[in-house]
């Protein structure tokens, strides 16, 4: 029994916006299952009273002065865009509503 089911992989793929084929789902279910089993070792470190570290170093309070810096030109901003219309990024129709 793998640590992760094919349906769970399908859910992860949806959350990650990856259109996977059925074969890929099977393949990743096996591989991810094995990886998840091997990384589960982190649970073995007894760390009840240990604070988690989100950063490598304990820096705090790094701020920027509220000053305007030059922006890109619209040409630069749009230079890599797959589609452009009226100086805006043209994108396929958007489903659903803003979250």
């Amino acid at each position: 029994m793998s640590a992760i089911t094919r349906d769970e992989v399908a859910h992860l793929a949806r959350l990650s916006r990856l259109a996977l084929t059925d074969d890929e789902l099977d393949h990743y279910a096996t591989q991810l299952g094995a990886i998840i089993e091997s990384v589960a070792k982190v649970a073995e470190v007894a760390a009840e009273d240990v604070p988690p570290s989100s950063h490598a170093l304990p820096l705090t309070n790094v701020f920027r002065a509220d000053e305007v810096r030059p922006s890109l030109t619209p040409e630069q901003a749009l230079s890599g865009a797959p589609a452009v219309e009226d100086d805006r990024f043209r994108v396929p129709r958007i489903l659903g509503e803003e979250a």
Partner: protein
Amino acid sequence: MNVETAMPYDEALDRYEPVLGLETHVELGTESKMFCGCKTTFGAPPNTQVCPTCLALPGSLPTANAVAIESTIRIGLALNCSIAEWCRFARKNYFYPDMPKNYQISQYDEPLCFDGYLDIEVDGKPVRIEIERVHLEEDTGKSTHVGGATGRIHGADYSIVDYNRAGIPLVEIVTKPIPGTDRLAPEVAKAYVTELREIMRSLGVSDVRMEEGSLRCDVNVSLMPRGSSEWGTRTETKNVNSLRSVERAVRSEIERQAAVLAGGGRIVQETRHFHEDTGSTTSGRSKEEAQDYRYFPEPDLVPIAPDRAWVAELKAALPELPSVKRKRLRAEWGLSELDMEAMHNADAIDLVEATVAAGAPAADARKWWMGELARRANESGSALAELPITPAQIARVTELVASGALNDKLAREVLEGVLAGEGAPDEVVEKRGLKIVNDEGELSAIVDQVIAGNADAADKVRSGKVAAAGALVGGVMKASRGKADAARARELILEKLGVSD
């Protein structure tokens, strides 16, 4: 559009009790964006205020705006919140084309400010709104939907996106659930947002223009049957963009939910959209399909640990808050609560205060703003503050009246001239020739003329019926086209007819 049935408000409230919750987003008025140096000017040409960071180009990184952090803490302090000793930004992960990184930098379980409250008054009664949290995040870009029905997202062929707004600092203020508002729920919601808006203004952190989206409100409503203590399922109505809409959205959602519940239905936890035109809400995306935002601490930004002494300084330097100021001014001006509330509702308090500061007596300042000027604002459908007249000009008019140079009637004419763009009060007086007649010779001649022309009235006065002098004073005023000093005219009449009061 799905038209849903509604239960009349009074009936709904007879059967159910509402619980409110409000999430308010305030765009801060910083010079630059939250995490980059791009400008924040509203209405700039598309994609002219963007850079690698706010476009999420590969490799770009955020850097946090110090003023935005400070403003958020000041807002938290004004709302009586505790300020975190240490907190982090977090990434809220979800894909959406107007959000360039496909995650929003926000705050999750470590908001900058938490556990506060805001006291408001509704119908003369105090209501305490508990604040759950105040946190800092970034705004999204703006999509325009092309094709299909007019600009709506459903049925559009494609969309075009402008990222100028992406990354503008956004403060989210979340209340705890607000039970016990009963029939006043819509008014409470509106009063809360109104008060919040005034606090933002007094702090100078945002222009809070709801019509430009710099203050946006999400309204949560749930109902429970009378006598029950278990809260119902809530809906979240998004982006309610005027104070009036806040009130209407709460009301319409109460009426809709009551109809659903009374009909044996159940409320779906969902996002709803408010429509200004119909005053009702429609269903948006259902929240039942679990949103898993996979929050985790933002590794590109370091934790914030506001220095306690600095927070204390910020607190000490807070301006007088609007409600406190209203209480003080009410006492200073000797007004009733009702009068003060009327001024508050008319947005007149600051104007009156400024007029008083320019030298006018409070009673006079209030009389003009709440009387003649309120009437004119109402006629032209504009806000008081938008009238083309300044508090200093009103103060000058009251000064002219006090000195006897104008009477009330003339003063009204002066105001009319100022509003018509004829210049400052003194210029209007000059141009329209509105100065009171206080040349003794001229006035004496008019009095003689009026006495001669009203022998009956003059005789009555001579015979001791002093009250009859009023008709003669009226005659003098008429003859002088309102410019005579009525009091002096009366004195002269009595003197000339040989009687005294």
